[in-house]
C-alpha cells in the first residue's frame, strides 16, 4: 500500500465533501477541424486573392461530402475523367469525416446507414461494388453487432431505444396507435428513400403542421411516446418535434422497412464509405481548396479557388446549399433552408467504466437527457475483450433557435463543453472522469438541414433541385433533411444529368 500524503489528503477532503474518491486525471483535448473561420470569410465577404492561373475542366464539383464524392464516383465509373472536386476542408467526407488514433478509427458525425430498401437503388449499387451486399446477402461484419442499442430509464438499462419498461396502459395504447399510423403511411407509398421517388401532393398537408402539432391532433399525449418521437427528430433532424414538419417526422418511421437487422456500420462510421470512395476518385479531389466565387458565364462557369480560376462547362454544387448565395454570382438569398447546429465529441477511454451496466452496446441513449448519448467505436470489433475504446458523443442543439445555439457554439470554450459532456455522462457512469483521457470536440454550425414545417414542399427547394442550368445543385439538403442516402442520390443524379448534357452535345 503506497499512498502519498498529497493523495491521502485529496482522498480525505474529497470524502468530506462528496464521499467519493475522485482522481484528478487531467483530461486533454481541444476543438478540432472547425470550419467556422472559413465559412465566416464567405459570410463577411472577405477579400480573396485574384486569379493568377486558369485550369480547364469539363466539370467542377464543389464540395467533397457524400454528395460530391458520389457525383465523382458516378462520373468516374462511366469513364468520364475530365473533372475536379474542390473541398474546403483538409479532409474530404463532409459529415462523414472520421478520425483515427492508436485505439481505433472513429466517426466525427454520420456513423451508420440503415439497411437500404429496394428503392434506394444507387445505395445498393454502391454497396454491391464495395462488397457490403453480396449475392443478395448483407455482409455480416458490416451489420451492427448485437446488442445494438440500449436506453437508460428509471435507473436501469433496457435493450432497444423505444421505451419498453414502465409503460402504462395508455402509453402502450398510444405506441400501438402510432405503429398503426406508420403502417398505413408506409403502405401509402408516399414516404420513400430517396424521398423524391415517393413524394406526393397527397401528403402535402402534413408538411403544413409540425410533428408535435400532428401528435396533439391525434390525441397522443403520452409523455413516454413524446419523449421517443422527440428523440427521433433530434437524432435525424437536430430539431424537436415541435420544430419539425409532420411529413418529415412521419418519413423517419414510414420510409424504412429493413429486410435485415441493421444498421450497417463501421468503426469510423460512414468514414468507411468515404475511404472506399476516395480509393476510387481520390485523384480528382483537391482538399483544403476553398471556393470563394462561382461565376456563371455565357459559355461556361468560372470557379474561383485560391488564386486559380477553374473554367468548367458546368458545375455540380454539392456543398450545403445555404452557401450558394454567398458564392454564386447573381443568386438571390434563400428563405426555406434552415440548419441545425450540432456538437460531436470523441472521448478516449483507457478503461471501460465499472458502471457500464450491460453487455457492450453500440448506441447508448439516456432518457430525458438533452443529448443523444454515445456510440462505441470498438463495437464492430471481433475481439472478445475490449479494454480501451472511443465513444462518439452526439449532441444536437435542438432546444431554442438555431441562430442562438450557433452563437453559443461559438462563444463557449472547450472547457465548457468538456464539463457539459462529462456531467451528462455522469448521470449513468459516475466514474466516467476516471476513464476518460481525452475529449476532442467538433462544432457544426450548420450540421444538417432542418425540415421545419413547409420545408419539404417548398417551391424554392423544388426549383433548386431540378438540375437545370450550368450549376446543378446536389446537396442532401435539397431533400429537406440530411441523410446519407439522399446525399448519395442527389450526387449521382447530378452526375447522370451532367453526362447526359455533355454526351448529348
Amino acid at each position: 500500500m503506497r499512498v502519498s500524503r498529497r493523495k491521502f489528503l485529496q482522498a480525505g477532503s474529497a470524502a468530506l465533501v462528496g464521499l467519493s474518491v475522485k482522481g484528478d486525471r487531467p483530461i486533454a483535448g481541444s476543438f478540432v477541424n472547425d470550419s467556422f473561420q472559413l465559412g465566416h470569410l464567405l459570410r463577411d465577404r472577405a477579400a480573396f486573392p485574384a486569379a493568377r492561373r486558369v485550369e480547364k475542366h469539363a466539370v467542377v464539383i464543389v464540395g467533397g461530402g457524400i454528395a460530391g464524392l458520389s457525383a465523382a464516383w458516378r462520373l468516374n465509373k462511366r469513364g468520364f475523367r475530365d473533372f475536379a472536386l474542390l473541398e474546403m476542408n483538409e479532409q474530404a467526407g463532409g459529415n462523414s469525416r472520421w478520425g483515427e488514433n492508436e485505439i481505433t478509427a472513429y466517426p466525427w458525425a454520420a456513423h451508420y446507414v440503415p439497411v437500404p430498401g429496394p428503392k434506394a437503388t444507387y445505395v445498393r449499387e454502391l454497396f454491391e461494388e464495395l462488397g457490403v451486399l453480396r449475392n443478395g446477402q448483407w455482409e455480416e461484419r458490416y451489420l451492427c453487432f448485437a446488442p445494438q442499442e440500449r436506453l437508460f430509464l428509471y435507473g436501469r438499462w433496457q435493450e432497444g431505444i423505444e421505451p419498453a419498461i414502465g409503460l402504462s396502459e395508455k402509453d402502450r395504447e398510444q405506441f400501438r396507435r402510432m405503429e398503426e399510423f406508420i403502417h398505413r403511411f408506409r403502405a401509402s407509398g408516399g414516404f420513400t428513400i430517396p424521398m423524391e421517388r415517393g413524394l406526393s401532393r397527397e401528403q402535402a398537408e402534413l408538411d403544413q403542421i409540425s410533428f408535435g402539432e400532428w401528435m396533439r391532433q391525434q390525441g397522443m399525449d403520452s409523455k413516454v411516446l413524446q419523449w421517443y418521437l422527440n428523440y427521433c427528430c433530434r437524432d435525424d433532424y437536430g430539431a424537436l418535434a415541435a420544430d419539425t414538419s409532420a411529413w418529415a417526422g412521419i418519413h423517419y418511421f414510414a420510409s424504412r422497412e429493413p429486410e435485415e437487422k441493421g444498421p450497417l456500420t463501421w468503426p469510423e462510421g460512414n468514414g468507411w464509405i468515404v475511404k472506399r470512395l476516395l480509393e476510387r476518385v481520390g485523384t480528382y479531389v483537391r482538399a483544403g481548396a476553398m471556393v470563394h466565387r462561382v461565376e456563371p458565364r455565357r459559355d461556361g462557369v468560372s470557379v474561383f479557388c485560391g488564386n486559380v480560376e477553374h473554367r468548367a462547362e458546368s458545375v455540380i454544387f454539392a456543398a450545403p446549399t445555404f452557401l450558394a448565395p454567398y458564392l454564386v454570382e447573381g443568386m438571390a438569398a434563400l428563405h426555406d433552408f434552415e440548419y441545425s447546429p450540432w456538437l460531436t465529441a470523441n472521448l478516449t477511454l483507457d478503461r471501460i467504466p465499472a458502471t457500464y451496466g450491460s453487455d457492450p452496446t453500440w448506441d447508448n441513449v439516456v432518457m430525458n437527457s438533452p443529448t443523444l448519448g454515445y456510440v462505441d467505436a470498438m463495437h464492430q470489433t471481433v475481439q472478445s475483450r475490449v479494454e480501451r475504446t472511443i465513444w462518439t458523443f452526439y449532441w444536437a442543439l435542438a432546444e431554442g433557435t438555431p441562430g442562438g445555439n450557433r452563437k453559443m457554439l461559438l462563444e463557449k470554450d472547450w472547457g465548457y463543453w468538456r464539463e457539459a459532456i462529462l456531467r451528462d455522462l455522469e448521470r449513468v457512469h459516475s466514474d466516467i472522469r476516471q476513464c476518460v483521457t481525452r475529449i476532442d470536440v467538433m462544432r457544426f454550425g450548420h450540421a444538417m438541414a432542418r425540415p421545419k414545417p413547409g420545408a419539404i414542399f417548398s417551391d424554392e427547394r423544388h426549383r433548386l433541385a431540378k438540375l437545370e442550368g450550368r450549376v446543378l445543385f446536389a446537396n442532401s439538403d435539397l431533400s429537406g433533411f440530411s441523410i446519407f442516402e439522399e446525399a448519395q442520390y442527389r450526387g449521382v443524379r447530378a452526375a447522370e444529368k451532367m453526362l447526359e448534357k455533355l454526351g448529348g452535345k
Partner: protein
Amino acid sequence: MGILLFITVLLIAACGLIYELIAGTLASYLLGDSVLQFSTIIGCYLFAMGIGSALSRYIHRGLAYRFVWIELMLGVIGGFSSTLLFLAFAYSQGFQLIMYALVVVIGVLVGLEIPILMRIVKERYHFRDVVAHVLTFDYLGALGASLLFPILLVPYLGLVRSAMLFGLINVGVALWSTFLFAKQIPAARGLRSVCVVVICALAVGMAQAKRITAAAEDNIYADEIIFARDTRYQHIVLTRFKDDIRLFLNSHLQFSSRDEYRYHEALIHPGLSAIPAPRRALVLGGGDGLAVREILKYPQVESVTLVDLDPEMTRLFTTHPMLTALNQKSFRNPRVHIINADAFPWVDSNTDSFDFIVIDFPDPTNYSLGKLYTTAFYKAAARHLSAQGSMVVQSTSPMFARDSYWCIVETLKQAGLKTYPYHVYVPSFGEWGFVIASPHEYLPPTSLPAGLRFVSVDGLPAMFQFPPDMSPMNMPPNRLNDQVLVRAYDQDWKDISH
C-alpha cells in the same frame, strides 16, 4: 498529559467504530441485505454500549488497572473479530448467533471505556472541560474511522487485517496507559508483559491473514482449492476431492479429471481419425491441453497449433505437476506451438491451413463469447481448412440446451459446411454435444488410435443417433447482428432451473 489523554480517547473511539463497521460489512457480504445487517448491528452495538455504561457504576476501585484490562480484551476480541466471523461462517451453523454475541461483547467493553476514562481524569480537570473534550475527541475519532474504513482499510488491508490493525491500536493504548497512569497502577510490569504477548499474537495474525481467509474459502467451496487466480481474462479455480481435479473458469465447470477422457476422446477422435493423413492440427480454446493430448496420439500429426487467450491458463497447464500429469505434458511436446491470442482476430489475420481444426470455447453465455459461434467466425475458420480438412465444434448440451445445440448446427450449415452432429454422455456434464463440420462428405473412421478408454469403432454409430428428446429443432443461424444463440442459451438454462 492532557493532549495524550485525548488522543487516547480519539483512538479508542476509532477502534470501537471500526469493529462495528467490520461486523456490518461482513454480515452484508456473507448474508446479503445490507440495510438489515447494518441496522440490526448498529442497534445491538449501541444498546450494548448502553449496558457497558450502566455497568461502569459497579466498578469502584482500580479504575486505571481495569481500563488497561478492558483495552487488552478489546484488542484481542475486536482484533480477531473478523477472523472469528469468517471461520464461523465457513465451519459453523450459528454464524448469526456468534456475530451478535460478538457485537454485544465488544459493545459492552466499548461502553465501559469512556465512563471509566472520564472518572480517571475527573480529579485533574473541571468536569465541564472533561465532558467537552472527551466527547469532542470521541466523535472526531469516529469520523476518522468512518472515513478511513471505506477509503483505505477495506480496499488495501481487507477486513481480516483491518480488524487486527485496530486490535493492535487497542493494545497499544493499553500499553501506553500503563505509563500514562503509572501512579495509579500497582503491578504495571506484569500488565506490560501481557500487552507485549497480545501484540505479538496480533502481529502474527496480520502476517498470516491470507491463510485464514483461504482456509475459510476452502470450506465455502465443496472441495479443497488447490489453485485460484484472477487473470486479466478470467477467474481460474482448481479444486481437488480425493483423486478428482476440477477446473472452473468464472465459476463454470470446465472438466472433472474423472471423466474428462470421455469428453476429450469424443471431441477429437471421431473427426481426426476420419482424415486420411492428418499433418497439421489447430486447437482454438482448449488451454488445458487435454484436446492436444488426444491429438498427439496420432504420430502422423507433425504440428499442433493451440490458440488460447489467456497466457496464465496455458502456463498453469504447462507447469503445474498435477495438471501436466493430466494432460501428459502435452504443452511441452515439441510438436505443439502455443499462441496466446484472441481467437477471432487471430483466425482473421493468420493464413496457415490445417487438416483438422478443434473449436473448443466456453459456452456462449454472453455476447463476447457468442461472437465465436457465428457464421462469420465459422466462415473465417473454414478458410483455414486444407483440401481434406474438417473441423469439430464443442456445441453445448443437446439435452439441456437443445435450442442452442441445433442453433450451432444451423450456423455451421449457413457458413457453407456440411454438418455431422453427435453426442456422448459425460457424467459431470450430462449429455454433451459436438458437431463435425466440413466442406466435403464425412465418413466415420474404421480404426482408432490404440488405448482409448471411451470411443470405439463399434460405439461410433450410436453417437450420431439422436433420441426424440434431443432431436433437431428448427433454429435460425447465429449471426453477429442478432446473436440468437446467446438468447437461446440463456432461455434454455432458465427453462431448466425454473
